[in-house]
């Protein structure tokens, strides 16, 4: 069955959800099994519309839950198709059991996670609680800061995930509402260029290849389980980083848009830096420029690839910085924030004398304003001037009530 191509303008005004839906269309995804949840619903709704309008040749499977959605994706990926879906928050939480299955079975699936808070209390707005919940699930994890990147990173995710040396599923994160429902100019690829970049799906160990029967989802007890997990981790640590770099390079060649596992902005001579994810990276970039006009050498480091964690790239980016803030948009639940810990781990055992402080911010969609970031950079500069962290190591930005500070 032939499908129609879509004429796109060079720049379309799309929100992050529609940008991701267009990417699923242009990648000609074979199967989307999905269950709707705010704020990710328009991604799978968009794919379904494209399919019903004959812009894509594939199957849309309506299921009864997110657990079933990912189970359907696992079945379709094992059968030998290009597979994707989307979810958020509670739906992601329900999907977690199957996320480990998908990763452990080495099935290339692309999951768009439109990041949203986790209940209770119930909240539909953007924070990174769901991203953090899945961080050890064995998936490759990309992070988009704006609709353009939600579009681009989907193509890159298919390319890396489906590589026969990788075969590990990939998440593309974008901020709920702040990216997913924010329309901005998106530079488009033509259908041919987009599909050409991702390439025709090449199955491996597919169940529908009856000439070569295979078993998926086996049981291994103490005799083999550890070797499976260890070797999969080995591939994440040794093979995947290079494949991501290759995909970034190929994408830059095609579009001129350059991605890096760790994005550095104004970092060459920075004394103080903020490390964060999502839309906050872009807001911080704007504030860093303004701080420089006031004489504070401010920079921003954005995490583009959360898994495999870019340990050495982080160490390199921050080695000469005097004071760093790790911004975590997820309730820490009785610990330092995840980025605080990862950054501390990356810089420990190095010569860096970086002063690190952690901040929890933006839970449940609470606004991170430019004014917050101005105050933050000033606090970091004070730490740098004093040569020590003058505050507690864990603070909160933008929360009402008595000041909260720990550690």
């Amino acid at each position, binding site marked *: 069955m032939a499908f129609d191509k879509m004429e796109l303008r060079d720049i379309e005004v799309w929100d992050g959800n529609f940008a991701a839906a267009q990417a699923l269309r242009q990648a000609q995804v074979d199967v989307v099994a999905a269950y709707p949840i705010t704020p990710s619903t328009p991604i799978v709704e968009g794919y379904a519309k494209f399919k019903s309008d004959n812009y894509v040749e594939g199957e849309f499977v309506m299921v009864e839950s997110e657990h079933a959605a990912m189970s359907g994706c696992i079945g379709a990926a094992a059968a030998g198709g290009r597979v994707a879906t989307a979810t958020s928050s509670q739906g992601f939480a329900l999907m977690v059991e199957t996320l480990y299955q998908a990763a452990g079975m080495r099935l290339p699936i692309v999951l768009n996670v439109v990041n949203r808070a986790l209940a209770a209390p119930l909240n539909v707005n953007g924070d990174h609680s769901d991203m953090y919940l899945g961080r050890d699930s064995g998936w490759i994890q990309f992070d988009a800061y704006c609709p353009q990147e939600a579009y681009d990173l989907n193509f890159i995710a298919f390319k890396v995930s489906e590589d026969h040396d990788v075969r590990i599923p990939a998440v593309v994160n974008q901020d709920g509402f702040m990216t997913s429902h924010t329309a*901005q*100019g998106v530079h488009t690829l033509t259908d041919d260029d987009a599909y050409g970049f991702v390439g025709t799906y090449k199955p491996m160990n597919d169940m529908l290849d009856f000439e070569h029967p295979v078993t998926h989802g086996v049981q291994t007890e103490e005799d083999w389980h550890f070797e499976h997990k260890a070797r999969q981790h080995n591939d994440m640590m040794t093979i995947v980083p290079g494949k991501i770099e290759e995909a970034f390079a190929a994408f830059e060649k095609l579009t001129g848009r350059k991605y890096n596992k760790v994005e550095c902005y104004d970092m060459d001579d920075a004394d103080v830096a903020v490390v964060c994810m999502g839309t906050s990276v872009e807001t911080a970039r704007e504030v860093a420029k303004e701080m420089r006009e006031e004489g504070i050498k401010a920079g921003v480091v954005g995490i583009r690839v959360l898994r495999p964690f870019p340990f050495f790239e982080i160490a390199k980016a921050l080695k000469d910085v005097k004071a760093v803030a790790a911004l975590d948009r997820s309730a820490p639940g009785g610990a330092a924030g995840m980025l605080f810990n990862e950054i501390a781990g990356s810089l420990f055992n190095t010569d860096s004398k970086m002063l690190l402080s952690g901040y929890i911010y933006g839970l449940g969609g609470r606004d991170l304003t430019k004014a917050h970031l101005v105050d933050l950079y000033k606090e970091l500069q004070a730490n740098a001037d004093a040569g020590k962290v003058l505050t507690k190591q864990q603070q909160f930005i933008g929360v009402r009530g008595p000041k909260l500070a720990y550690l």
Partner: protein
Amino acid sequence: MLEIRWHSRAGQGAVTGAKGLADVISTTGKHVQAFAFYGSAKRGAAMTAYNRVDDKVIMNHEKYMEPDYVFVIDPALVFTSDVTINAKESTKYIITTHLSTEELQKAQPKLEGKEVYTVDCIKIAQETIGRAIPNTPMLGAFMRVSEMYDIEFFKENMKRILAKLPQKIVDANMIAIQRAYDEVK
């Protein structure tokens, strides 16, 4: 940077209006952003939508905004929510109401001394489109007040954006945009 805040009720088309405006502006080479606060808003709940326009890529994702323009597309919101919040001295207001500007400022003293324009987008929408969807007329009024683009250029672009709607509805929207352009005071 040009910044606009819309006050609307969920279902009145503020998001579509904000995205439509962003789309038109984007065709002229400027950078745009259009977003909204929904929460789990139900149809009829008060909500706000936002536009940012700039000559360079818009990096700022904060929700906080000191708008250059405030659009109010539901007449009651002037009284039930604070449409002047975070406004500047120079902020211009375009407000849907059956009242004259003077009557409105008397009824809502917060608007006294501000640059306020009034137009009855609800009535215009009802009489042209046949439904109280005041978003496109508001954009017609904005074209008049801001003199951003020639109204014909704007209507041509809106035709493209609304193209998936039945022709009759598209035509009605064009009349609504022109009427609001002509009637805003």
